[in-house]
């Protein structure tokens, strides 16, 4: 099963990012083998709709689980529609979080924020 985690660096040992939509990378980890792939988040510099684009990137990676510290409403709408399991990240590395997920130590993300929507038109 593929697990997506937003991260500031391209490595599985990188710390989990503090944001979702504006995270630099998504690390996609195959939970059985711990093989991983880093995908650049094109939404980093988006004027608006970053959460939607980031969510689409996660979906297109084939991930079935997302572990994230935060999630905006629009991104949540996209991911929930595709039945992605959304878990609450705690401070740690991408690897730590995947291990915790496998051990059933993570909780489902409860709080969806309304979005920052900084992009003005």
């Amino acid at each position, binding site marked *: 099963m593929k697990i997506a985690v937003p991260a500031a660096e391209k490595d599985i040992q990188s710390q989990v990012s503090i944001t979702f939509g504006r995270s630099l990378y998504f690390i996609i980890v195959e939970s059985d083998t711990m093989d991983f792939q880093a995908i650049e988040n094109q*939404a980093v510099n*988006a*004027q*608006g*709709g*970053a959460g*939607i*684009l980031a*969510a*689409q990137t996660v*979906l297109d990676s084939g991930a079935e689980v997302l572990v994230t510290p935060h999630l905006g409403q*629009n991104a949540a*709408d*996209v*991911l929930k*529609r*595709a*039945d992605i399991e959304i878990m609450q990240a705690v401070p740690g590395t991408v690897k730590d979080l995947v291990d915790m997920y496998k051990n059933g130590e993570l909780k489902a993300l409860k709080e969806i924020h309304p979005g920052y929507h900084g992009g*003005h*038109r």
Partner: protein
Amino acid sequence: MRISVLSGKGGTGKTFISTNLVSTIGNVYIDCDVEEPNGAIFLKPEITGQKEVKVKIPQSDENCTGCKECVSFCRYHALAYAKDKLLVFHELCHSCGGCVMVCGHNALHETERRIGIIEYGKSQNTEFRHGILDSGNPSGVPIIKELLRDMDKDKIIVLDCPPGSSCTVMESIKDSDLCILAAEPTLFGIHNLNMVYRLTNLMDIPAGVIINKAVEGNTIVEEYCRSKNIPVIGKIPYNRQFDIWNSNGELVSQKQGCRQIFKQIYENILEVAANETAGSTKR
């Protein structure tokens, strides 16, 4: 002639100047500040007509194959494809129609969504229009476009613009013959005046300044105007009585002896406009 009244920040007197000016010269008043239109408080128009403003948003049908051509095309990221369905985030959509054009499967068509209204009316001998954006909508630009459609070029049209120098202001002043920049004589006022002046310059629209709430001995705005070679169209002194009338929704121009202030401003506008025309023929 189309005259736009704008300012870099709120509270400098855009509505004060535009409503009093239009009630003095009597012609057409248009409140383009669709997020918070307040000209009606002073002009008290009798509303005679109303129109809904709608924008086009895409909708997919059963022809959709999930190719995501439209999703990657949309630079506003208003589209996502999840599982088996195209999701449209209408608050991000700019109604550009591009997604419909790039769809290779004839699976997208446009539907309409209301974003606000326009009201038409009459206030004594002034023709009145204002737009009201429905709450929760991010952009008033389509309402302003509709407000300014089919304008009679022979009339004197006064546009009360939104504050600042963003898209809604650009849309409002686009076809103006002259921009009046309302400014307060403070450092903050100069900063904001400079913002809108840069905008009118960029858009190549002639501009003049009205100094509002002017106080004796303070020439900060005049100095700025001299340095940039911008004509000063008028100077309205700070007057507590004006504030009281204004706070009560009364037009200062209708008070005894005050009409002259706005008549003079109008004459100065005509002069600046005439100089501009002469200048541009020379160019």
